């Protein structure tokens, strides 16, 4: 894999007015502007907040990249986005973060074609990567896997 970043990043300013309605401003900033609290993003957000009566409640910077060598997707019995392997983790902040992966490889599910096999090497590696490198939305540490299973797509009703 080789990830090439876009020539610009996107700066989003999120406003909330006195009536409770949201609005967003969007800018393209330099690829080196990655910190919403410094440099160009900070200068633009501070200046915008000074001339608006709405509350600038969040400044967000989006950094995007494309994979120049993604490879070729393969076919399989569950190779559809609607088929998902749903993982539920435990965390030290009491939350239960979920990770849903579409088009799962059939090798990771057990003989019931439903339960994800926790002894599968790829599953073990995913859990280890999440425990070591991922966090919860509030920055808490992920501590382990609670359960994982395949979710079937919704069935069409008979016509």
């Amino acid at each position: 894999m080789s990830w090439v970043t876009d020539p610009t990043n996107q700066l989003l300013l999120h406003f909330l007015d006195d009536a409770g309605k949201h609005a967003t401003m969007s800018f393209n900033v330099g690829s080196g502007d990655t910190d919403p609290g410094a440099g160009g993003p900070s200068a633009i957000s501070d200046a915008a907040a000074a001339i608006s009566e709405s509350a600038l409640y969040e400044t967000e910077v989006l950094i995007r990249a494309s994979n120049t060598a993604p490879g070729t997707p393969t076919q399989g019995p569950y190779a559809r986005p609607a088929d998902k392997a749903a993982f539920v983790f435990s965390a030290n902040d009491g939350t239960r973060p979920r990770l849903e992966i579409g088009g799962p490889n059939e090798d990771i599910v057990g003989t019931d074609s439903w339960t994800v096999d926790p002894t599968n090497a790829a599953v073990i590696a995913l859990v280890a990567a999440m425990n070591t490198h991922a966090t919860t939305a509030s920055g808490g540490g992920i501590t382990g896997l609670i359960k994982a299973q395949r979710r079937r797509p919704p069935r069409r009703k008979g016509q």
Partner: protein
Amino acid sequence: MAAEATRVKVTYRTFYDIEFTVTFYVAPGIVDPNNGSVQAIVTAINAITRAVAIRIELSASNPHSVTATAGAIYVNEDKGEFVFQGPAGAHTFKLPGPDPSFVSSTDNETIDASSGAVGDFVAAVAEFAFDANGGVITAPTEGRRRAARKALKK
């Protein structure tokens, strides 16, 4: 550095050319798509799915503890519009809920962008913002307030 955990969204493409996304979070301050932690998780996900990763987006966010002006004259549907010029055409930025003290009392529309706080805003945008291809944009000398839409009578 961003105060919140960085949200990572990876877009995958399946054999049937349909895309889906996988979202997870990493530590604040991680803003490089090629960061080791990000790539370790992406590599592990790649081994789980038959799809391939094609795009990645990282979101670094700072919340602010502020409140809107009570009884504001202009709300978010009211916009202060500023038209900047770039190499590929015009770019309009729409500021929600403009402060009425910067709007002309003569016509309730014109906003002087040549000086003061409004001048600082357009100058900051001209200095730090670009068009999508990285081209320089030029600040205007005035803006215009566009009123909120009124509901149509039945």
